[in-house]
C-alpha cells in the first residue's frame, strides 16, 4: 500500500497497528485470543466476498445473521451506554445503532470477528459472574453504582489486578468497538466537530488566526 498508499493508519489513534492499517490483517490483539477461556462457536455464514457493490447501503443482519440473544443484546446496550452515555452534545451509543453494529461485528464470518466474539461473549459471562458474586444479580439488573463499581476494576488493564486482566482486555476491546461504532455515525462525526466529506471548489487551508495562535505563521 502506499499504501504506501495514503497512510490510512495515521488516522487511527491505535499506534501499535502496523502498516496496512487494518486490524484484520495485522492484528495487534492476537494475544488476546489466547487468553479467552470460552471461545464461542461461529455460525456458518458467508462474507461479502471480494467484489461487493460499494455504492449501496448495508444494514446489520443483511449479509450474515445476527447472533446475540436478547439478554446479550440488553447487556451490550447497557455496557455501550456506560462507555458512551448521552450528554448535551450527542446521544448515547445505543441510540445510534451501536448494539446492532456490535452484534454484526461479533457475528461476522471473518477470523478477527470470530476472535472478538470469544472476547466479547467471554466478557459478558464474566460481568454476570462478577455481578452474581458481588450482588447476587445479573450485571444488567444492577444499579448504576454497582455497574460502575465493576467497570472501575477493569477499565484500565495496566491497573487491573492479575485475576481481572482478562476482563480488562475485554473491556478495552469493547470500548474500542463501542467507540468505533459510535464515532463512525453522523451523530459521532458531529460530536467531534468533523465538517468534511463535502465537495468543495477550493481548499483554503487553515485560517491565519489559528496558525498565529499555534506559532505557525
Amino acid at each position, binding site marked *: *500500500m*502506499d*499504501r*504506501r*498508499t*495514503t*497512510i*490510512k*493508519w*495515521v*488516522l*487511527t*489513534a*491505535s*499506534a*501499535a*497497528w*502496523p*502498516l496496512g*492499517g*487494518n*486490524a*484484520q490483517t495485522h492484528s495487534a490483539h492476537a494475544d488476546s485470543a489466547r487468553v479467552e477461556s470460552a471461545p464461542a462457536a461461529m455460525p456458518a455464514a458467508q462474507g*461479502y466476498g*471480494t467484489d*461487493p457493490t*460499494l*455504492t449501496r*447501503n448495508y444494514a446489520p443482519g443483511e449479509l450474515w445473521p445476527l447472533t446475540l440473544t436478547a439478554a446479550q443484546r440488553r447487556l451490550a446496550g447497557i455496557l455501550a451506554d456506560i462507555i*458512551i*452515555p448521552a450528554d448535551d452534545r450527542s446521544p448515547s451509543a445505543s441510540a445510534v*445503532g451501536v448494539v446492532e453494529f456490535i452484534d*454484526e461485528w461479533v457475528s*461476522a464470518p*471473518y477470523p478477527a470477528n470470530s476472535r472478538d466474539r470469544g472476547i466479547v461473549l467471554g466478557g459478558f459471562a464474566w460481568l454476570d459472574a462478577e455481578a452474581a458474586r458481588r450482588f447476587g444479580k445479573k450485571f444488567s439488573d444492577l444499579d448504576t453504582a454497582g455497574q*460502575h463499581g465493576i467497570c472501575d476494576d477493569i477499565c*484500565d488493564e495496566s*491497573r487491573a489486578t492479575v485475576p481481572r486482566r482478562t476482563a480488562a482486555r475485554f*473491556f478495552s476491546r469493547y*470500548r*474500542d468497538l463501542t*467507540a*468505533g461504532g459510535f*464515532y*463512525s455515525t453522523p451523530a459521532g462525526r458531529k*460530536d*467531534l466537530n468533523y*465538517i*468534511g*466529506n463535502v*465537495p*468543495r471548489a477550493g*481548499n483554503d*487551508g*487553515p485560517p491565519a488566526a*489559528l*496558525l498565529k495562535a*499555534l*506559532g*505557525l505563521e
Partner: protein
Amino acid sequence: MPFVTADSQQSSYDVIVVGSGAAGGQSAYTLCMDGAKVLMLEAGRKYAPEAETPMFQTPDLAPLRAEGTPDKPFGFYDATVNGGWSVPGEPYVRASEDDAGRFDWWRARMLGGRTNHWGRISLRNGPYDFKPHTRDGLGFDWPIGYEDLAPYYDKVELLIGVYGSNEGLENTPNSPPGCLLPPPKPLVSDLLIAQRAKRLGVPVIPGHRAVLTQPLDFRGSPARLHPGNATAQRILAEDMRNRSACLWATSCGRGCAVRANYQSTTVHLPPALTTGNLDITTDAMVYEVTVGRDGRANGVSFVDRTSGKQRHAAARVVILAASALESVRILLNSKNARFPNGLANSSGKVGRYLMDTVGSALSGQIPLLESLPPLNEDAADGVQMYVPWWLYQEQRAGKLKFARGYHIEFGGGRRMPGFGTAAGMEWLTGGSYGAKFKQDARRYYGSFVGFAGRGEMIPNDRSFCEIDPKVKDKWGIPVLRIHWQWSEHELRQAAHMQKTFADIIGAMGGKLRDPAKTDGAKAIAHGGSIIHEVGGAIMGSDRAASVTNSWCQTWDVDNLFVTDGAVFASNADKNPTLTIMALAWRAADHILERMRRKEI
C-alpha cells in the same frame, strides 16, 4: 467496438499489451495515440470508476463500519476488486514462513489494476538513482541515465496531472515550467511537522501526487505531448476537459468518479479507446507468450475466465505489463524446446533481484494539536508535504551504516472519523469511560500524527522468485514461489527511520505510546507489504547479466518487451509508479519507431 471478447478479437494486432495498470495503460495510450492497433488483455473484470466509486459513502453505511476484512484488506471502500493479499484460487508460495523471509503480494483482478487504489505519490528518480553501483559499488547501474528519462517524466506529469513544487534539492529533480500543478495547502499538522523537523535539519517540502489541484491545461499540453499529431491533440484536449479538479473530499484510495486523480481507467484508457485503435478483453488471464519457428513472439495464450477455455491472440509485438511478478511468471511459464528455462531467460536472470521498498512507521500524539476548532482537513487526502532524503553528504562521508536513502511520508489532521478514531487511547486516558471518555475523544481527535519511511532496497541474490514445481492455480497455471531476504543495509535503514520519527515527534512536544524500535529486524515491514515490488527482469547493458536492454526489449526475443516494474535495476526510495509510466512511454515510442522502420 473497444471492449471485445475472446471471440470478437481481430485475427491479429500490431501490439498485444498484457495488463492494464500503470505500465499497460501508458503503453497502450502511447501506441494508440500514434496509430498502432493494440489488443489489451486484462486478467480481471471490467471496471467503471464513474459508476462504481463510493465517493461520499460514510463508514456507517458499510458492513462492519467499513473496516478491513480478508475480503477487502484495506477496508470496504478500497477500490480493489477481487484482490488483496490473497486472490481466491490463485495462490503463491512463500519459500519461508518466518518473518524475516516473508513476502506478501498484493494483487487486483480488475481493469486498471492497482492504479485504481494506489497512493498517487509520484516522485521522479534522480540522477544518482540510475547509477547506484557507480556511486557506492552495490547493486546495478541502469543502462540509462536521468537525462534519458527526464523528457518522459515531463510527458507523464503533463498527461496525468501531478502536483508538487521545484525545490532544487540534491537528487530530487525539478520539473520544467508548466509540468507540475500547484501543491495543496498544508494541514495544521503538516505545518507543525515542517517547523519542528526543520529545527532538526530535516527538510519538509510539498509532496508530489497525481491529483488535480486545478484543471489540466487542455489548451497547451496536448500540443506539447503530441507534436504534429492533430488527431491525438484533439482527443486528448477533449478528454482533459472532461476531468474534474479535486473536490477536496473523500479518499483517493476509493478511486475517483470525477477523474480528479490518476488511475489508468480514468486517464490512460479513455483517450486510447477514443482513437478506435484499442481493443480490450477483460477476464483474460495470460499464461504464455507464444513463439514462432523464427524464435520471435507471435502472440499470447490466455485463459478466458468467463468460459475457462484456453485461447490465443496474435500480434507483431508483445508487451508484458502485468506487474513485475506476473510478467516474470509469464516469462518463466513460456517454456519450449528453444527456451527450456523460460522465455528471454538465456541470462538466467528472469525472476532474479526482486526488490520492494523498505517501510517502517511510527505515530505519536501531539498535545499542541488537541482540541482544535472545527476545520475541514480532508484536503488532498494525504502527503500534502513530505521529507525527501536529506543525508547524502553524511552517507557519502561514511557516517551512516547503510548505503541508500529514504523519504518520509506523514499525515495527521481532523479526518473523517471512523472505526479507529477513539480506539486504543488507554495510554492517554487512564482507561476513561462515560462522560470523561467522550471528553477525551473530543480532546484527542485530530491530535495524532503518523510517519512512514520509504527507503531504497539494494537487490540481492536471496530475493527472487521461481516457478513452484507443484502448486498450480485454479486455471492450472503454475504459480510463483517467492524467496525473500533483507540485507543489513535495509535493516539499519529501518532502525534509522524509527529514530528520526521519534526525534521529530519529540521536537513537536509529542508522546509515543510505544518506544521507537532500535532493532531493524523488528522495525521493518514485511517484504512486499509496501506494494512496490520491482525487478525480476532487470534492464542492463550486458545481455549476460540482464533480461532487457535500455528500451525494455528482451535481449533474446526482439519483439518482446517488458514495460512494468520488472525492468527496474534498482528501487530508489521514490515510489515506482511514475518511473514505470515514463519507461513505458519511452519503450512505446521506441516500438513505434522500430515498427515504422519495419524492424519488428
